[in-house]
């Protein structure tokens, strides 16, 4: 029973890992932009939820109506006005990657700095839906279940979108080869911006949901960026279900490791598993080619 609950608990954590990685998968996998300031959107979403609840007693879920459009527009602006000039001038992909890493690294500092000045550095947290839910005799927290459900729903929706719609087909074409996509009359700049902005919007959702059960502060973004990167790489760049699956594997491994081996080793197990996967399947678990 305890074992079952440990696994279930790991599944929920895994869902959260998948959730925070989905947006990056759109930004890096489709729009081909390595965005190191990615986690700052999560921080923004978390702070929005926090302030809406503390200042105006507005439900964190309702705050999504504000943070998601703002994150979408903000990320769109970043892509359009900061990253597009780099795409235009880049001689090749390596140069572009180096440039975007530098610029987004700079943005990370700017956003974090603004948040520190505006909201101070202290830890924030609130209690929302921290009520026990019983699943087949095991107990889990409702707020974690909510994040898990959102992760699965978003991953499935993105999978469907990419596989079954015209827009998705165009996005996949961009992911594979932007130059060729341009040749077959796909509006690459517009759709890339769309994918990038959508990635940001998803991160705002993740931020709101994660803030319900993990405390946060102005410097927390980079932690989630790096975690998301690991999940994306492990699941396969551009693979939405792979991303979810990789998150789940990591989450369950952590929980089982904590339960069966030593809780002190959970993160070590996490990284070791990731490195092992990369060594065995360098292109990620769920990528062909």
């Amino acid at each position: 029973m305890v074992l079952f609950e440990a696994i279930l608990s790991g599944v929920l954590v895994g869902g959260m890992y998948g959730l925070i990685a989905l947006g990056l998968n759109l930004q890096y996998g489709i729009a081909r932009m390595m965005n190191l300031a990615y986690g700052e959107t999560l921080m923004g979403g978390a702070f929005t939820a926090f302030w809406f609840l503390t200042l105006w007693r507005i439900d964190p879920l309702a705050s999504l109506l504000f943070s998601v459009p703002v994150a979408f527009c903000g990320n769109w602006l970043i892509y359009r006005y900061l990253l597009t000039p780099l795409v235009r001038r880049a001689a090749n992909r390596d140069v572009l990657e180096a440039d975007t890493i530098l610029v987004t690294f700079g943005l990370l500092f700017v956003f974090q700095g603004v948040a520190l000045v505006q909201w101070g550095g202290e830890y924030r947290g609130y209690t929302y839906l921290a009520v026990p839910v019983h699943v087949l005799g095991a107990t889990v927290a409702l707020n974690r279940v909510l994040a898990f459900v959102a992760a699965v729903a978003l991953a499935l929706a993105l999978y469907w979108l990419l596989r079954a719609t015209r827009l998705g087909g165009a996005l996949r074409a961009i992911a594979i080869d932007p130059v060729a996509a341009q040749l077959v009359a796909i509006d690459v700049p517009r759709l890339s911006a769309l994918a990038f902005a959508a990635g940001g919007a998803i991160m705002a959702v993740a931020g709101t949901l994660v803030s319900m059960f993990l405390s946060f502060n102005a410097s927390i973004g980079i932690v989630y960026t790096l975690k998301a990167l690991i999940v994306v790489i492990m699941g396969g760049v551009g693979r939405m279900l792979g991303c979810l699956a990789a998150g789940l594997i990591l989450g369950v491994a952590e929980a089982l490791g904590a339960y069966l081996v030593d809780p002190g080793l959970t993160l070590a197990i996490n990284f070791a598993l990731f490195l092992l996967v990369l060594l065995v399947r360098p292109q990620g678990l769920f990528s062909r080619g």
Partner: protein
Amino acid sequence: MARLALVAVGVAVLAALPLVVSAYTVSLLISILAYVSLATAWAFFSGRTRYISLATAAFVGIGTYTVALLGDHLPLPLVLAIAPVVGFAVAFGVGLSTLRLSGVYFVIFTFGLAELIKQLVIWFEINQTKTLARYIFVNAGGTLIYELLLAIAAVVIGGVWWLSQARLGYALRVIGEDEMVARHAGIDTTRVKVLVFAATSAVMSLVGAVLSLRYTYVDPNIAFNSLVAFQVLIMALLGGVGRPWGPALGAVPLVLLFELLSGTFPHHFGIALGLCFVIIVYYLPGGLMGLVDRVRGRAP
């Protein structure tokens, strides 16, 4: 030959600096020299082969922990000799096992590796010593640390300059452009990559070991600080990775910039630094080396 003499005079002048400048300036120079060596070593492998490594923090940390573990038991020169050997050995193993990875996979692998090593050290310390703290009471003043780092920086830059003109530098560059072509040209890519990765990592461990003499207190979060990896990467990219002098040219102004900003805008450091990065990318494409080239009127 005249240039060589000039360089020798330059190093001699630098070596004499602690005699005339304040201890604070020495400590600033220590930081500059450490990052010059780290960025130069990093760029020689990662810049040329385009295998971007984020494991810098791991190798610096290995050097730090070598001193922390052995500093009380062995004479300092011996400890400083062991540190790069450990770094070399670890990097050699890592290099052999990561040959199949390239691009972003290699980047994230090296990051994950650094974190894994940190976690394992933490776990080991908790279970072995029942504390995370290690104390380093080695009697080394700022001047000694400065001279050691100066020697390392001189050797590293000199070595990189010399190797760039040798067959090895050429081989690395071909690997960076197209590994297939490199193999067809008869380059043993595996051997070149692994050996250079291990050698540059050994330099990082040595720098970490020397820097730790300033610390007194060490724990895994300090020794394996992933921020160091990012800073080194940024410095090298800023300076330009293609030339022996490039990374050094990136490290010096950045350390000075950090110092200036943390004193002038202590509460807006992040914002100021971030804006500097953005400006650099838009107005200094190709890094500072590119700017030097343009000023000299050469094609970039």
